[in-house]
């Protein structure tokens, strides 16, 4: 391990990496700067802890994971692949160089259904291990159509495996504050939205265009760059760049919504992995979740502006970048 650093972290994005595009890719600090966190060796081999939880035995977990991994692996323009190593007696979050997914009892994390921790090579940023824990304190379900009062295991596994690939949280969703604290999802359009649908819902089993664009961007098939396009630009408030603004590109042809963020002090952004066609671009403050669940430097994120549309329709062409879109926002 002398050549490797250990970086176990909950789902927190590293930001300030130039060139980071749509959705949110995790970044790794290496000697040369910040690089996207990703697997260098494929397939990603994983093991399943031979331990169940109320509502889901170890074999149920194994089957749900198989389905969820397959969903990510089946993304057309992404090269990532996975390989099931079998059951193990090891627990997740042990830094042993082995990717383990399993239930843990964490009553202290009363609002956390699951989390992902990484070990990466500090020289290259390549992932070495990514463990996923699922909190056995919650009621789980593997029923085909979902089960009232229980969280869908496959949906939550799909979300966490998205992190395992190197994706951060998407902000494509709307929430409301709950009387007892926390937030409740009204609607979302990304599996990687940080707050799960209510117990009983199985809507989180299907990858959305934002998730698909994200994983394809990290592990692109050769045709990904030639078959999709991107939009670049800046978000300005009173002439200055806005950091941490959430953007969404809406494809008028397909109905796809793909999100992204301004990730530099000059308000620069790139929304990549967009299907060709005319797009409407909208920017809003990151106010539908805890800012900390998106950025580890929350104090830099500007929340004081009103949701705004770009005054230009942008036609995206495959293999090209439509640059120089400036969106001016006003303080609230």
């Amino acid at each position, binding site marked *: 391990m002398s050549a490797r650093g250990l970086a176990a972290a909950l789902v927190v994005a590293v930001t300030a990496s130039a060139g980071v595009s749509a959705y949110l890719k995790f970044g790794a600090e290496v000697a040369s700067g910040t690089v996207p966190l990703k697997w260098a060796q494929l397939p990603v081999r994983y093991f399943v802890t031979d331990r169940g939880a109320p509502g889901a035995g170890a074999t149920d977990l194994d089957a749900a994971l198989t389905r969820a991994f397959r969903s990510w692996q089946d993304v057309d323009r992404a090269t990532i692949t996975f390989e099931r190593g079998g059951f193990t007696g090891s627990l997740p979050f042990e830094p042993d160089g082995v990717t383990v997914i399993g239930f843990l009892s964490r009553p202290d994390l009363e609002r956390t259904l699951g989390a992902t921790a990484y070990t990466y090579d500090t020289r290259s940023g390549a992932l070495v291990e990514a463990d996923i824990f699922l909190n056995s304190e919650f009621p789980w379900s593997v029923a085909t159509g979902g089960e009232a009062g229980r969280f869908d295991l496959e949906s939550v596994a799909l979300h966490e495996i998205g992190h395992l690939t190197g994706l951060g949280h998407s902000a494509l969703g709307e929430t409301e504050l709950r009387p007892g604290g926390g937030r409740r999802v009204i609607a979302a359009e990304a599996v990687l939205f940080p707050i799960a*649908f209510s117990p009983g819902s199985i809507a989180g089993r299907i990858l959305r265009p934002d998730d698909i664009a994200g994983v394809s961007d990290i592990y692109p098939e050769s045709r990904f760059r030639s078959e999709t*396009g991107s939009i670049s630009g800046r978000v300005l408030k009173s002439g200055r760049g806005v950091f941490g603004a959430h953007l969404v590109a809406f494809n*008028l042809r397909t*109905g796809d919504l793909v999100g992204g963020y301004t990730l530099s002090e000059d308000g620069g952004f790139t929304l990549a992995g967009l299907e*060709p066609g005319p797009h409407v671009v909208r920017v809003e403050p990151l106010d539908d979740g805890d800012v900390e669940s998106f950025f580890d430097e929350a104090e830099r994120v500007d929340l004081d502006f*009103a949701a705004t*549309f770009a005054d230009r329709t942008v036609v995206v062409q495959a293999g090209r970048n439509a640059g120089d879109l400036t969106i001016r926002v006003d303080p609230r």
Partner: protein
Amino acid sequence: MKRRLAGALLAAWWAASPMPSSAQAPPTTTAGQPAVTAAESVPARPPRYELALGPAWLGGYDLGARSAQLTGNLGQPGLVLFETDTEMAGGFGLDAKLGYRLTPTLRLEAGLAYSRPELRTSVSDDAEGADALVAVDPVSQYVVEGALLAYVPRWQVGNGVPYALAGAGYLRQVASEGAAVDSGGVYHAGGGMAWERAGAASWLDAWGLRADVRVNLRTGGIDIEDATRVWPSLSARFYVAF
């Protein structure tokens, strides 16, 4: 629609066929007096080529409405983040044609048209109260086309000779400040009126004005769905024949 276009062409051909050439006897009025026709001003040697240039107006067409929709939580409908309604707005352009007179009543024509329509998307009903606006992207539109024109002197009005036309072309649209290029096909049919006078120079056999109205059909190009779009256009051209 193809069947209708073919019908229009046949009708034009039938109407044009009995038309006498300028070397034949001019048509007469019901009173038996020679009619004043455009053909009178055409020289004995009929001009073979025709060069035309002029402005054109293109009508707009609707591309459709779309909702930006998020998947709803358990037991709830999806949330509409905002609504959109998109159109290709009309505008003015420039039209250049090079024609070849197959017969005194039939022209074969090749042309290039340039226009600058706007792709306009009205955005409204934002879930978080963003101000509604119209997002605009100017589009540079080029059409290279060919057409067949059939003149119908027997339906002459004053000095104007009516004609019918139909053709097809290649459409190229450049949007988002050159970042996006799309292409498609354009088909058109219509009719117009031409006023011609004999030329005063040795190289100039005739000159005149033409104006026509068309119905255009487009496939491909910038759109939000795979659909055929229809729009009208008007054009007026000054032309010289030699």
